[in-house]
């Protein structure tokens, strides 16, 4: 999420360091940073912290803890119940589904819709959002500030009898609504909606987006603010099915504390009254089961045992204090109460992580494991594979890996991207045959006389035995060569039986230092044969050829040599290839002419 340094600064009296310093602090103590552009950080909030950190408040709290900079106490941190105590019976809210844990409606009259003040517009625009009007901007500001999504309805567009009636329920299959941006969405009965009960009309898709019919415009004077808590999974599924992901749905799907709705409502009402005026009539707060506080206990010994550190009790307490956790030491145990929005703090290991990351993982020493009391087992399949691999390589076979996906087979996947080759191979043979063909074309380039390849891989074959089902996994060895053709055998039929006492052998590994990219362009082969006087060195001739041909000569080999009447005949095969274009025959001929001329000038007779 986009986080502005200026915005963060509102939480601190002391000036914050540069964005780059903030980025580093966050990287090593809490979140990866995707990018830093000017004063805006793009923070990659992990899924376990979506509850509290998809907002400036959450990130500011983290920075306060990491940098140990005091945090300006927040108005919205206490006394919220007092403010919501102004109840009104002008709105009746009914929740008809357990997937909505809380719904607060706030009723304001006489609001003046207009442009946002500059400070608000700047804040919103700094993080890439568009300013709409003062009231909508205020609700967005609260969401990006403390994490609670909100929505505003134009009360004048809802039906009023003795009171307004808002209901949260599952949609009926086929019900539809036009959103604020003029798109119609049709719902299934797995989607939660907000309705105007008197009009029996859907006015919002719960946790995702509001409807056009009840939207705020220049003529709006009375508004109903919504601060609610919707189930994360339900919102995620609906947003996915409707292909409608919004800043609100992104937050609800991470699961929010239902306590946050109260703070969100309070913050929104305050800002709206400040910038758009209006009189607060009151609130309707449907909160069937208030969230319970959860305390978690841990001892310093447990922390050190898990991290391998030797932290003291005061190191630990310091971390909890910086994070704003309240705690109580009871003998060796410390009982910790995290702030309500920290839904991620559930088990002692969660506290171990808090201590580890805030103290800094650089404080975790590097300690090797003690000697293992038993000797490790030798894995049968790996042992056999290694044996087969060595045998085949010493016979000149090279190892390939081909894809497990094929055009036919006993088993298949349902959802392959592109839909092609969705079967799981029942044999290595088709893949190896195709591979053999492809590599034969490159024989001259590779400078090999015969292509020999093998693969040790998993297949899902038809069963030869009626008692077993088709498509059972099996590891097989497939070999393919120009002379011997292609065949495969079960790994267990190909290698000696494992002896646990003997175990693995020490086998050689690749000695290659660096891979050299190869040209993807076609190559051209030319042969040249010559008589050389006895006593002339072959390597000298090769050197002449290489110097004359230059970098386009990618491979050269002496493929024939014989002696007759005191003279020696040499025949070289030369392979030309460019890294950046397809060579023409013309170019190859030019090079061959040059080579010929050079060799002739040295007195060699070209045949």
């Amino acid at each position: 999420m986009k986080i502005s340094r200026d915005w963060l600064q509102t939480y601190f009296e002391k000036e914050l360091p540069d964005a780059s310093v903030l980025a580093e602090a966050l990287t090593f103590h809490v979140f990866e940073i995707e990018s830093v552009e000017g004063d805006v950080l793009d923070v990659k909030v992990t899924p376990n912290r979506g509850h509290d950190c998809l907002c400036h408040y959450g990130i500011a709290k983290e920075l306060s803890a990491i940098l140990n900079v005091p945090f300006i106490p927040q108005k919205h941190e206490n006394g919220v119940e007092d403010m919501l105590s102004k109840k009104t019976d002008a709105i009746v809210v009914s929740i008809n589904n357990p997937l909505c844990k809380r719904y607060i409606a706030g009723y304001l009259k006489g609001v003046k819709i207009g442009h946002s003040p500059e400070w608000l517009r700047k804040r919103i625009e700094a993080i890439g959002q568009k300013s709409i009007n003062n009231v909508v901007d205020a609700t967005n500001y609260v969401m990006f500030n403390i994490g609670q999504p909100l929505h505003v309805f134009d009360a004048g567009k809802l039906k009023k009898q003795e009171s307004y009636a808002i209901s949260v329920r599952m949609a009926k299959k086929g019900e539809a609504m036009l959103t604020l941006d003029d798109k119609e969405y049709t719902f299934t009965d797995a989607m939660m909606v907000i309705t105007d009960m008197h009009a029996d009309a859907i006015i919002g898709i719960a946790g995702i987006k509001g409807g056009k019919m009840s939207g705020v415009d220049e003529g709006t004077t009375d508004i109903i603010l919504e601060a609610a808590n919707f189930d994360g999974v339900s919102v995620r599924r609906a947003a996915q099915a409707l292909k409608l992901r919004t800043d609100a749905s992104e937050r609800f799907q991470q699961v929010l504390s239902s306590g946050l709705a109260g703070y969100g409502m309070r913050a929104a009402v305050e800002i709206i009254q400040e910038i758009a005026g209006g009189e607060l009539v009151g609130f309707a707060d449907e909160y069937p089961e208030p969230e319970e506080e959860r305390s978690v206990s841990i001892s310093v010994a447990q922390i050190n045992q898990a991290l391998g550190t030797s932290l003291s009790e005061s190191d630990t307490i310091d971390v909890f204090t910086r994070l704003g956790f309240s705690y109580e030491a009871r003998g060796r145990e410390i009982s910790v109460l995290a702030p309500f929005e920290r839904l991620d703090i559930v088990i002692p290991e969660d506290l171990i992580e808090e201590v580890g990351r805030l103290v800094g993982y650089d404080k975790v020493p590097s300690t090797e494991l003690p000697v293992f009391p038993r000797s490790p087992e030798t894995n049968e399949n790996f042992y056999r594979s290694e044996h087969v691999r060595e045998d085949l390589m010493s016979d000149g076979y090279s190892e390939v890996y081909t894809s497990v996906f094929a055009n036919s087979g006993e088993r298949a996947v349902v959802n392959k991207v592109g839909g092609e080759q969705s079967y799981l191979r029942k044999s290595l043979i088709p893949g190896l045959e195709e591979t053999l063909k492809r590599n034969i074309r490159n024989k001259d380039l590779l400078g090999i006389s015969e292509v020999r390849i093998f693969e040790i891989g998993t297949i899902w074959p038809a069963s030869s035995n009626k008692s077993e089902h088709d498509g059972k996994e099996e590891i097989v060895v497939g070999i393919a060569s120009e002379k011997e053709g292609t065949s495969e055998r079960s790994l267990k039929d190909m290698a000696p039986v494992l002896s646990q006492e003997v175990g693995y052998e020490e086998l050689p590994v690749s000695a290659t230092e660096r891979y050299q990219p190869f040209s993807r362009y076609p190559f051209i082969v030319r042969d040249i044969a010559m008589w050389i006087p006895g006593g002339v060195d072959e390597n000298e001739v090769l050197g002449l050829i290489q110097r004359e041909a230059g970098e386009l000569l990618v491979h050269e080999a002496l493929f024939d040599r014989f002696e007759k009447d005191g003279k020696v005949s040499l025949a070289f095969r030369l392979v030309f290839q460019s890294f950046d274009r397809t060579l023409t025959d013309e170019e190859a001929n030019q090079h061959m002419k040059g080579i010929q001329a050079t060799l002739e000038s040295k007195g060699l007779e070209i045949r």
Partner: protein
Amino acid sequence: MDRGHMHPISSLIREANSIFHNMGFTFAEGPLIESEWYNFDTLNVPKDHPARDMQDTFYIKDEPGYVLRTHTSPVQVRYMEGEAKKGNTPPYRVIVPGKVFRNEATDMTHEAEFYQIEGLAVGEDVTLANLKGTLARFFKELFKNANVEIRFRPSFFPFTEPSVEVDMRLVGENVPEKLRDKWIEMMGAGMVHPNVLKNAGVDPKKYRGFAFGMGLDRLAMLRWGIDDIRLMHSADLRFINQF
């Protein structure tokens, strides 16, 4: 006939097995078609977790509840269960090199099938410091003659708590220039989540463990300067014969 060439990932697995074997780790394996139970549930991945979406995971046709494993981690629980059945209590140490699958379009850095190596150490006294020490030794032996530094950053995975990203830096004259002195993100790791131990029948009050999962294709690419992950499954001898 000249000796044939070994696939670079086979070479890497051979080397990794040898290094980890000396540290007491057993090579373990598991099926490629895996149940959702082992691939997700036992690993503390909630039923509604986005990783289970069809766009990320290959589901097996006409076999509800089965997937092509998305990581080597299901072998953690399979191995621990297997040991318990044999009457072996921790300490356990295993590595699981093997093929894994993600349902994604391929490009130079993404493949639908690739290789991972999982590591798991469980015991009464296993610590996060041991994870650092184990990985430091692994990389030190793998990148011979280089000074290896290991760094952890906070992260999140459902199956570890705490979770970390592991970065590595190679320092020294013998290190290829492209790798020298640069921090490189190597893998995700952490302390095994108590729910995973519980699901495997191991008492999390008595035992703890660390686990890591590293991409072998990526490691091979770094080690040899390979520029395209698709070469691994290309079966192209212009590639293979360089190793």
